């Protein structure tokens, strides 16, 4: 497998010959082509960010104000209810930021794929660029939203702890999970246009089933297994909170589950997408 990929990569470096009979497994071929088209991913991320803010006076500041506004509204609404939760505003904002990254990137992966539908009927492009660039844009926004988050953390009097070193890992794991989900959803959306709408409804339910607004301990013990342990997003949101909010290092087995969930989602998404990618030009 690895040898095939290397040989293919070597041949791809000579973009001179296209031979449909000489391909490694679709999943590997796509990876090599994605690396070759890495500058396209950069351009697509740039396009998303530039066009989103080009005609607004506040520009890039919107990325920071958006989650902050949502947090303010929810804090006003729920801080009385959850007054037992220490530094509720920070608890809430961490959850919102991580969740927004996931929901926005998975939706954007599907949208980009539909946008690219006209293109992939005309020219060859590795089709994963759409989902990967959606993740790239999301990561830029996620980094930007660390600014208001830092302000809220300081304002609520939370100390910065060494667990903050977990943050890059939380980013990477959530990004892998979102990419896997985004690829899987794009594959389905290529065949059925209503997948995006159905997913939007599912996201709404998923949001309320994940402890983002409410503290974990308001859920009765017997329900926690179903709501938390079987909810992949729970592990990632918890990792974000362990980095910035709780003063505990994650238990190794919990961390292992998060890593496994992220990687399994990525591999399943990647393999499913690349197996079907050849057919997209027929479909979209």
């Amino acid at each position, binding site marked *: 497998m690895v040898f*095939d990929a290397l*040989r*293919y990569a070597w*041949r791809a470096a000579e*973009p*001179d*010959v*296209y*031979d*449909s*009979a*000489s*391909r*490694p*497994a679709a999943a590997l071929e796509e990876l090599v082509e994605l690396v*070759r*088209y890495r*500058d*396209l991913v*950069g*351009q*697509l991320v*740039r*396009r998303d960010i*530039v*066009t989103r803010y*080009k*005609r607004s006076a506040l520009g890039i500041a919107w990325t920071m104000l958006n989650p902050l506004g949502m947090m303010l509204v929810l804090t006003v609404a729920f801080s009385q209810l959850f007054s037992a939760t220490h530094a509720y505003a920070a608890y809430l904002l961490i959850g919102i930021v991580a969740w927004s990254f996931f929901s926005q990137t998975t939706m954007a992966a599907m949208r980009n794929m539909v946008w690219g539908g*006209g*293109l*992939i*009927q*005309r*020219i*060859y*492009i590795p089709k994963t660029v759409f989902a990967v660039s959606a993740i790239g844009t999301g990561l830029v926004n996620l980094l930007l939203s660390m600014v208001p988050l830092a302000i809220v953390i300081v304002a609520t009097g939370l100390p910065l702890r060494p667990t903050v070193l977990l943050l890059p890992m939380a980013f990477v794991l959530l990004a892998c999970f979102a990419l896997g989900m985004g690829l899987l959803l794009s594959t*389905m959306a290529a*065949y*059925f*246009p*209503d*997948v995006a709408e*159905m997913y939007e409804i599912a996201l709404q339910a998923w949001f309320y089933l994940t402890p983002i607004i409410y503290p974990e301990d308001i859920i009765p013990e017997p329900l926690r297994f179903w709501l938390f342990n079987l909810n992949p997003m729970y592990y990632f949101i918890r990792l974000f909170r362990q980095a910035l909010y709780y003063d505990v290092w994650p238990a190794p087995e919990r961390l292992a589950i998060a890593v496994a969930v992220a990687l399994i989602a990525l591999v399943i998404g990647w393999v499913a997408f690349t197996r079907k990618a*050849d057919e997209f*030009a*027929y*479909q979209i």
Partner: protein
Amino acid sequence: MLTRSEPAAAARRETGSEVTIRLENISVRYRVSHERMGTFKEYIIRVLQRRVNHDEFWALRDVNLEVRKGEVFGIVGRNGAGKSTLLKVVARVLRPTTGRVWVRGRIAPLLEFGAGFHPELTGRENVFLNGTLLGFSHRQMGEKFQRIVDFAELGEFIDAPLRTYSSGMQARLGFAIATDVKPDVLIVDEVLAVGDEAFQRKSAARMEEFREQGATVLLVSHNTATVKKMCQRAVWLNHGVVRALGTAEEVAARYHEASV
């Protein structure tokens, strides 16, 4: 999957450096399923009812042909004969259902210019976006940038948002990006008409220049006169099957006969 050890090298040895495009037993099947029109919900219901039917439609069937370097090769046939499917197979846009396609060199995507343009971005930003869509690196586009702006005759407009461009300006920019570097294979669709008359002459001159430098040209046309005038060899496709393959004269004559 890689089953043969060095197919590209083998093909090169077999055919020499002469052949640019080679199609072996190419078939392309479209699956027109009833679910295609429908939604995911409908699909699930049909799966549960065990009523998933596909109508199969072969856009190309067992097509074998070779195009040599520097040749102007015509493709004739009526609408729906499989001409654009053939172009897509050559351009790597469609993977053939069966058979093998082998192409040496860079293919200019002349199917439609500026398909990936974004109206809010400036001309400059669009040059880089479009160039990377065509598989060039950011650095390569930096080297090409000034030539592209000059050829498209955009001057200082290059830093204005694309939505302020006339359609002619957009087409010129798209053409300039797609053809800045000599492609090895040029695909020309006769319905292609870009910009005003002066620019059409300029673009025709550029295509002619490429041809003289040894680019292979695939010309798609309904018009037998054009094919006879411009092409050395041609293929006639009918319902996805090769009806005639040979010199442009012969093929054009047979196609003309049949359509009268």
